[in-house]
């Protein structure tokens, strides 16, 4: 197997460096998660989102004033491309929306170019949507764990550690994305919606997919090289699969980049979540997942070789 030793990276030996790097990315995000940085969108807390196109675009302060005069002082107004204003308020009835429309027409004559697009979710329904989201995440996780168990069934007992390592990797990826959006939410008021939940689940699926490819290769090389120590096999396997991991991620990233740049503001955050998650997923599949296996093996070896004083007298 040592046909190209020059191409081998010392990926296993530097595992603590890679773990540290992951930690550095996860910790700030985790801190902001604890600070409540993840802001639920109107879908998850109920409320109204209006998307109105103006020309000329009025001052945000004036728009807020109009909304306040209609009893919506809590309104958050945000500019978007194409002369659009995104307005978030508490729940409105259709008649309230019509009233807002009339008030805009009065205050900014001729500026409102079309009836605002609107999305209203009642708080009672949003609670249900949150439950649904949580349920889908839980079920997805369970099924993915089952899939991992199935994929690694031929490893025998070792399947357990491979499965666990895959789960560590997917949690790593999920937390990096959650953390990023907690930070974005804390500083820029970026909100998460069901599309975000979808993105996180997609990332989890992608992460497992990447990790399975690496582990599959480790399994194959272990079979082809009986008696070889685990760490060199992992190094070799990672070297073999790194190109594939990077390239497949790259192709997905290319399409996501196109979505991010050209897909419009309504799916920009969705694309961003996927981009970050897939970069994290690629990193974890090369630098974390197999290293967890290696660490496990080293700890086990150390435990086996520990001095056994009580065994000597007997």
């Amino acid at each position: 197997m040592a046909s190209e030793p020059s191409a081998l990276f010392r990926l296993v030996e530097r595992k603590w460096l890679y773990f540290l790097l992951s930690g550095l990315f996860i910790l700030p995000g985790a801190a902001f998660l604890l600070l409540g940085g993840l802001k639920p969108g109107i879908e998850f807390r109920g409320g109204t989102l209006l998307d109105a196109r103006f020309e000329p675009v009025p001052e945000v302060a004036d728009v807020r004033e109009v909304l306040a005069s209609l009893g919506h002082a809590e309104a958050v107004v945000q500019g978007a491309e194409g002369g659009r204003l995104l307005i978030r308020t508490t729940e409105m009835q259709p008649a309230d929306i019509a009233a807002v429309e009339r008030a805009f027409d009065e205050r900014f004559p001729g500026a409102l170019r079309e009836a605002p697009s609107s999305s209203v979710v009642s708080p009672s329904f949003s609670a249900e949507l949150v439950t649904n989201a949580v349920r889908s995440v839980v079920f997805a996780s369970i099924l993915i764990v089952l899939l991992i168990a199935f994929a690694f069934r031929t490893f025998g007992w070792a399947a357990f550690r491979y499965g666990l390592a895959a789960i560590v990797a997917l949690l790593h990826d999920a937390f990096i994305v959650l953390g990023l959006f907690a930070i974005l939410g804390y500083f820029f008021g970026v909100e998460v919606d069901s599309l975000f939940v979808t993105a996180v689940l997609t990332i989890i699926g992608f992460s497992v997919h990447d990790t399975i490819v690496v582990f599959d290769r480790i399994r194959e090389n272990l079979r082809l090289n009986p008696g070889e120590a685990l760490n060199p096999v992992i190094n070799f396997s990672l070297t073999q699969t790194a190109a594939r991991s990077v390239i497949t991620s790259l192709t997905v990233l290319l399409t996501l980049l196109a979505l991010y740049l050209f897909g419009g503001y309504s799916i920009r955050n969705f694309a961003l979540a996927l981009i970050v998650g897939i970069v994290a997923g690629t990193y974890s599949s090369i630098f974390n997942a197999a290293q967890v296996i290696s660490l496990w093996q080293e700890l086990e070896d150390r435990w086996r070789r520990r001095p056994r004083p009580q065994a000597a007298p007997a």
Partner: protein
Amino acid sequence: MSGLGPWLIALIAVVAVWVDIPKHQFDFPFGCPGICLRVGDRYYFQEIKTHLGLDLQGGTQLILRLKNESLPPGVDTPLPTLNDQARKVIDRRINALGVAEPVIQSLGDDKILLELPGVADIQQAQEIATRQAFLEFKVPDEANPGQFKSLDPPLTGANLKPTFVTFQGQAQSIPVVNFEFAPPDDQRWVDLSKQYVGKPTQILLDGKEISSPNIREVFSSGKGVIEGGFTTQSAKELSLLLNSGALPVPLEIVQSTRVEPTLGADSVQRSLVAGAVGLLLVALFMVVYYRLPGLLAVFALLYYTALAYAVFRLVPVTLTLAGIAGFILSIGMAVDANVLTFERLKEELRTGKSLRAAVDEGRRRAFPSIWYSNLATILTASILFYFGTGTVKGFALTLGLGVAVSFFTAAVVTQLFLHLAVDVPRLRRRWLYGVEERAEAMRPAAQPA
């Protein structure tokens, strides 16, 4: 991969392209916009077109909840039955309005999804969906002068023949709604007029008085008119509501979405650009990095795009913004299986195998990874589809179908292309596969026996 395989794949391509071609412009080639089959006197017809979601074509979407807690005590019709009845009533009302392709679905037992493409007036949509149209006739209450009471059992609009609008007055300009009770309520109506002749009655719609006419004479039939100070418009609306029947239970709007058609068209435009740019970037990368196999993968990718789109049109999948995002994402993922195969192919070539042996070995050894990784994505997509609503469902459906189709193109179509390519002598140069040329002297030794 011999015999029928290539022909089958070519046939699938032809069918996919035929499905993809817009039918309404061409009526091609059977003078029918879709699949029209006639076997004996049985017809099968499915129109083939791209179904755009509300967020892309504009319109109004409501999610309604059955307020079963506000039903009078004693009414214990099961929720699914109420849901069914409510949907039928809404369906009749919408049909009378002539909205094209409305969607009326139950979401669980206690909710109804209502989509009205092209309806911009959310207030009108609200009226249609939530006006209960519960008509009741009340009579004077002797115990409380000036008040009205319900009959026992209440006399309601549940048993009316179709109503219609006529005009009264000297100039025939006052619109009124004509109604007629069907038996047995027609007899009750006649009896009521006998008992209360010369006294006022009250007509209520959804608990609000719309008219309180005096009974001037004893009726001879179940007929009557409502003079509610209507405009022509409002009289017609009331007539329509009464004809569609009353909702069995009050409904409340828990989610409403209105999308302006221009915003939707904008989204379609953007998605097309994003999809095209994404496809182009991936294609460019594949050709530059993998050379000949990369080019073959690009053809397979075009095949994939045509086939997936055809599947979406046939199923049919309603494309939403999130759905298109899922499709674009699946383009990136569709290449994955090819990358796995090509990396293997390179490795096998480097170990000294012949091209053909390397192609077979590459496919064989890459297959488990491709299988499991696709399975992981399809699994995630199915969970999202099962538990998700609206946008999430759309995303999950296109992603899942996309990955399934991509599995087919990567495992079958790319392989076919590769096999066809290695059969062409001019294309058997190793550098075309991204591997350095072998020294000429080694060739005989490396050829399999």
